[in-house]
């Protein structure tokens, strides 16, 4: 069985080579520029993100953008190893990538971990059996995103405001159970929002269901942006600066507040795809993303801004982009992003610990049509 697969792979490879030889223009290109492939969320391989690296290493990065970790995993499972050199994923999915053997081991020495805040030296989701599989690129917080014309920062300092009668039919949801149930779990007072027992789980379900009369709709990325912008909804739990930062660039009067009860953290990272034939180049790319230059670029991506783990990167943000830095919580002193993490207000988004993921999902489906 193994043998036949190997033969087929060999065949595939030779097929690829033949195809390459036949297509003359690509040879010409191949002589001058190396191509590297990246499986990523949208925006990670746009010119603003990779142009600098491409020029430096005479490489062209060809992206395959996905719109959900499940699609990404399914695609990888059905593609020959080596199809994707770089894989960009959220922390929850890195564990699944590792378990499915889709990514290569990394050497921590290769990357600029010294520049990072200590919290990110050994970020839990990226290590497995004490081996490194992914390097954090950037992260963000999820709390309450709100239109400042309708909801003040002070008002948004507690999740309880979501139930306020004056916001009836003005509350929107990003259509994914993990962040939404995470923040509502914090509102219920669970210290670890994703590690909750049976009682807390059923209480969380009641809490969530009681919010339904306030809810206008469930939106995907695009829908979240346009509904907040148009005023269709004025407040959304479980999203963050990754949305409001984009809208503010377009002149919308919106922001994200992390309420007293706490917020959720999402994390993006890069890994090297199993069987990559350009692993060296991929390693160089990840090195670049962890460097001060790369970190500064990542904080300001067109697709959406995010917090970076690099102290050196912070310095540059504060001096060069003070306004954007401020909104991201990148500033010196009390209440900055790292401070929030250290105070224990921020909890990493993860899969439910005591319940089956399917249970959370089923409940979310039921909630949507309730």
């Amino acid at each position, binding site marked *: 069985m193994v043998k036949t697969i190997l033969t087929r792979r060999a065949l595939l490879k030779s097929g690829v080579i033949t195809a390459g030889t036949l297509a003359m223009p690509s040879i010409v290109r191949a002589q001058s520029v190396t191509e590297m492939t990246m499986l990523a969320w949208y925006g990670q391989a746009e010119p603003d993100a990779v142009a600098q690296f491409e020029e430096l290493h005479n490489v062209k990065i060809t992206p395959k953008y996905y719109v959900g970790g499940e699609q990404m995993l399914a695609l990888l499972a059905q593609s020959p190893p080596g199809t994707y050199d770089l894989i960009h994923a959220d922390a929850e999915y890195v564990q699944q990538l590792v378990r499915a053997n889709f990514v290569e081991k990394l050497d921590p020495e290769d990357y600029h971990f010294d520049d990072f805040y200590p919290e990110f030296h050994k970020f839990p989701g990226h290590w497995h059996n004490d081996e490194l599989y992914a390097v954090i690129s950037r992260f963000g917080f999820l709390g309450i995103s709100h239109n400042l014309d309708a909801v003040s920062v002070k008002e948004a300092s507690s999740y309880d405001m979501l139930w306020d009668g004056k916001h009836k039919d003005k509350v929107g949801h990003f259509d994914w159970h993990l962040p939404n149930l995470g923040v509502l779990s914090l509102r219920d007072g669970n210290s670890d929002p994703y590690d909750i027992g049976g009682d807390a789980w059923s209480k969380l379900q009641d809490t969530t269901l009681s919010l339904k009369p306030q809810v206008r709709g469930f939106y995907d990325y695009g*829908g979240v942006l346009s509904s907040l912008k148009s005023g*269709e909804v004025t407040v959304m739990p479980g999203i963050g600066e990754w949305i409001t930062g984009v809208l503010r660039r377009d002149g919308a009067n919106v922001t994200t507040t992390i309420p007293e009860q706490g917020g959720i953290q999402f994390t993006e990272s890069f890994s090297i795809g199993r069987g990559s034939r350009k692993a060296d180049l991929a390693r160089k790319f990840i090195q670049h993303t962890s460097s001060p230059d790369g970190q500064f670029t990542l904080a300001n991506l067109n697709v959406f801004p995010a917090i970076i783990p690099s102290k050196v990167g912070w310095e540059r943000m504060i001096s060069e982009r003070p306004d954007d830095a401020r909104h991201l919580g990148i500033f010196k002193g009390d209440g900055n992003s790292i401070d929030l993490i250290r105070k224990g207000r921020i909890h990493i988004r993860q899969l439910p610990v005591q319940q089956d993921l399917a249970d959370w*999902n089923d409940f979310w*489906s*039921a909630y949507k049509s309730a």
Partner: protein
Amino acid sequence: MTTLISIRRLSRLAYGGLWSLPLPLWLAGFFLGPMILLIWLSFWDVRNFLLTPDFQIENWQKMLSADYFWAAYLRTTLIALSAAALASLIALPCALAISFFLGLKARMVVLGLFVVPFFTSYLVRIYSWQIYLTENGIIMKTLAAIGIDSGSLLNTPFALMIGLVTLTLPLVIVIQSISMLSLDKTLIDAAYNLGCGPRRVLFATVLPAVRPGIVLGALFAFIFSFGDFVTATYLGGGKFTTLSILIADTVKSGQQWPRAAVVALVMIATLLISALGAISYAYRRA
């Protein structure tokens, strides 16, 4: 003598085979495989978020016993039926106008105009509808200008119908028109000569004669609406969980492709039965 027979039979077989075989062969090569995989997939297991080939009926039990599944099933059927009926009703006068009231040139141009929207990405068109329907959108502002206070129309059944009719109307009109244009005009003249009024002619002569076109148009509208994901997401605001949305949601619960496959297979069965029913009705001798 016998060789002559066989040569003639052979050449006839070859002629028939040349027409009968390509599509079935192509589908056998590239569609049967995926279908079998899909059916097999519905019996797989998901362990540690990894799809594992297996043969267990738990996925079927789980989905078919879930209330939310049947609620979504009913909702999807209702939405698709309404959309098909609505699109057919709107298409009918249009197809009549195209086929009987327009000159040759105008007819070609108008049919062309109905075909063009197909080519402008459906995703883009639905995205564009949002600006009409949303809070402070074009419709709301227009209505406000004449003193009517309407809320946002987004995430309402109305918005769903707008989206689905956008998707299906051109196809239904084109199918109905093809059917009407190939109608024998003497049939209509004969009806008039028998003293039928325009209404009788329409209901007793034209409509029965173009029944295959009407039924087929409605069937396509139903199929498209039943499987639609885009309108339900962008204009329904995720509040109307259709089966397609349920599939997407199911996949989100940690690689539950097998359960999604169950939903998909139920959808396929439903559509297949509707299609066979509609087609046999369409071509039944009146």
